[in-house]
């Protein structure tokens, strides 16, 4: 088991290195330079654009050959130096350190919301198969899967903020993270992000439950005279959990720079999505690489955690 984990960790580092290299190349072969953002200011001050550009490039080592820049960047990274953000004028780690919590709270809350409601509805839907409730849940999940999350966000703002005035149209960073006001203003973003996930979970839970409901051990459990509650909760649900965990963990990995990214932009939440979005437009390559790496490590960690979770959930699975 331990050797398996070590192998996986080494493999993860290799993949992360591959992604880092691809991102670095993409950023440095692009036609725009991080210096571009200074050009207008420089020109406005009447200085010679080219000489200032060269000075800035020399200062940040941008004039060196790309291979040398790459080695320099890698060397710094291995020493734990993540670089300097041009656009925010602060170290990359500080920038990320002050923004990650906004993404984290959004993703955490919407995931909890989606799992609780989605799995619950899915179980009910499977137990009441082919009833009106089941059909309603199916239609709801089809709708939820097909609604673009960012548009749902816009519609929620339109109805609840613009017309009904129940919520504000923008995210107010003035409230502390641990406050009721903050929780309240996260209602719409959490719904916008969570409903798509929720709809997926309803579908997967339902089909996983139905698969197991037909199994013989369920008939046996019922024949033994166990109450239906126990049959569903202990015999069917526990066996349906494994495929669900796969889906939920996969979603968790892809949501960070997928749905959450757009939700942050729609609602103006200053999380990592917003940070990386601004960094890309400012060609702030240290930030882009750092954020990409964080996303990558997150996905790799979640993949590993999923595989390890399997062995706990299903003792028949072994990786030796």
């Amino acid at each position, binding site marked *: 088991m331990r050797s398996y984990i070590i192998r996986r960790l080494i493999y993860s580092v290799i993949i992360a290195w591959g*992604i880092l290299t691809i991102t670095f190349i993409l950023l440095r072969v692009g*036609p725009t330079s991080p210096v571009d953002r200074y050009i207008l200011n420089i020109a406005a001050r009447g200085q010679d654009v080219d000489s200032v550009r060269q000075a800035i490039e020399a200062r940040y080592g941008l004039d060196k050959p790309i291979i040398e820049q790459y080695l320099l960047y890698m060397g710094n990274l291995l020493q734990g130096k993540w670089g300097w953000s041009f656009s925010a004028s602060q170290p990359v780690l500080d920038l990320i350190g002050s923004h990650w919590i906004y993404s984290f709270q959004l993703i955490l809350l919407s995931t909890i919301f989606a799992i609780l409601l989605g799995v619950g509805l899915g179980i009910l839907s499977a137990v009441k198969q082919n009833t009106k409730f089941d059909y309603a849940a199916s239609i709801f999940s089809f709708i939820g899967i097909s609604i673009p999350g960012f548009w749902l966000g816009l519609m929620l703002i339109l109805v609840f903020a*613009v017309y009904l005035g129940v919520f504000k149209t923008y995210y107010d960073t003035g409230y502390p993270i641990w406050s009721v006001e903050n929780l309240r203003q996260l209602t719409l973003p959490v719904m916008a992000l969570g409903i798509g996930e929720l709809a997926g979970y309803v579908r997967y839970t339902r089909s996983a439950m139905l698969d197991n409901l037909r199994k013989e051990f369920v008939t046996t459990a019922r024949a033994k005279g166990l109450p239906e509650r126990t049959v569903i909760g202990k015999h069917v649900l526990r066996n349906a959990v494994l495929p669900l965990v796969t889906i939920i963990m996969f979603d968790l990995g892809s949501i960070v720079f997928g749905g959450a990214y757009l939700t942050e932009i729609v609602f103006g939440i200053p999380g990592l999505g917003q940070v990386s979005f601004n960094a890309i437009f400012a060609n702030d390559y240290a930030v882009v690489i750092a954020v*990409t790496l964080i996303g990558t490590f997150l996905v790799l960690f979640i993949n590993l955690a999923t595989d390890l979770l399997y062995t706990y959930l299903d003792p028949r699975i072994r990786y030796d």
Partner: protein
Amino acid sequence: MTETRSMTRGKAGMPVYINRRLMNYYWERLKKNRLSLVGLGFIVFLALVGIFGPLFVQDPQKVDFEIKNMPPLGCSIQESVYDIKTSEFTTTLINGRADHPLGTDSKGRDMLAMLIAGSRISLLVGLLASGMAIFLGTFIGVLSAYLGGWVDNALMRFTDIMMTFPFFLLLVLIVFIFGPSLAIIVLVIGLTGWTGAARLIRSEALSLRTRDFITASKALGASDARVMFNHLIPNVISLIIVMATLSIPGVIMAEAALSFIGLGDPMSTSWGTILNTGQHSLDTAWWVAVEPGIMLFFTVLSFNFFGDGLRDAFDPKASV
């Protein structure tokens, strides 16, 4: 050769047949799923609108500030104008007009014309990009499964890297670097979206590879290319069709999301671009944000319905 079969590729004695009777069987199965027919109907309607619609409406990019923020036919809004001389508000009622049945946006562009132009873009990007992704995925998957060894290893490790990459971040990054144009958007989605297909096709091809008819054709002296193109790929074709259909919604949403955050092709009108305009006029012109989203929603829903129906029709184990 019987009447029920027609030859599609007739090289040297071993043609790939399209079996008419089997096609009829699939069609009969598909027809039983009403929702998938509704989906197909809407897709066909949208395609017709996209192809012929632009002939009947005005130029979607035509700006006319005289008629800006005109509500859809049957709706009316109150517009307050502040008169600087009398310092009084005058409120006028603006009614929707028949010549702009779906209203106009904040630059006076006709919504109907823009939506029609958008349906063209969405379908075009959806079909081209997912076609490209599935083609690449099939090619890589079959190659990997059939050749095995170090080719398989290298291709699958590369797939791992691509799968771990934060997908949307990569899209934003590349589109920003190479400039927003339709060709770039299609290329990027096509070149990054093949990973899931490659894995699925690979696992399918791996199990096919050991089957007797493959061994037989190899024993008869068939070349690798022949086995791959005439035996392996025809046997995964139904899987490919289903995957392509079900991947289109994701592509359409990705394109809309890119345009929404301002990375759409500035020369063309896409639903995402309209949403971008609508986001800023939620309080003055709700329809600009509502209408393209509804189109997006129904398009994605239709592809999901149709894809699900196709999957069940092709799956001999599914009851329809």
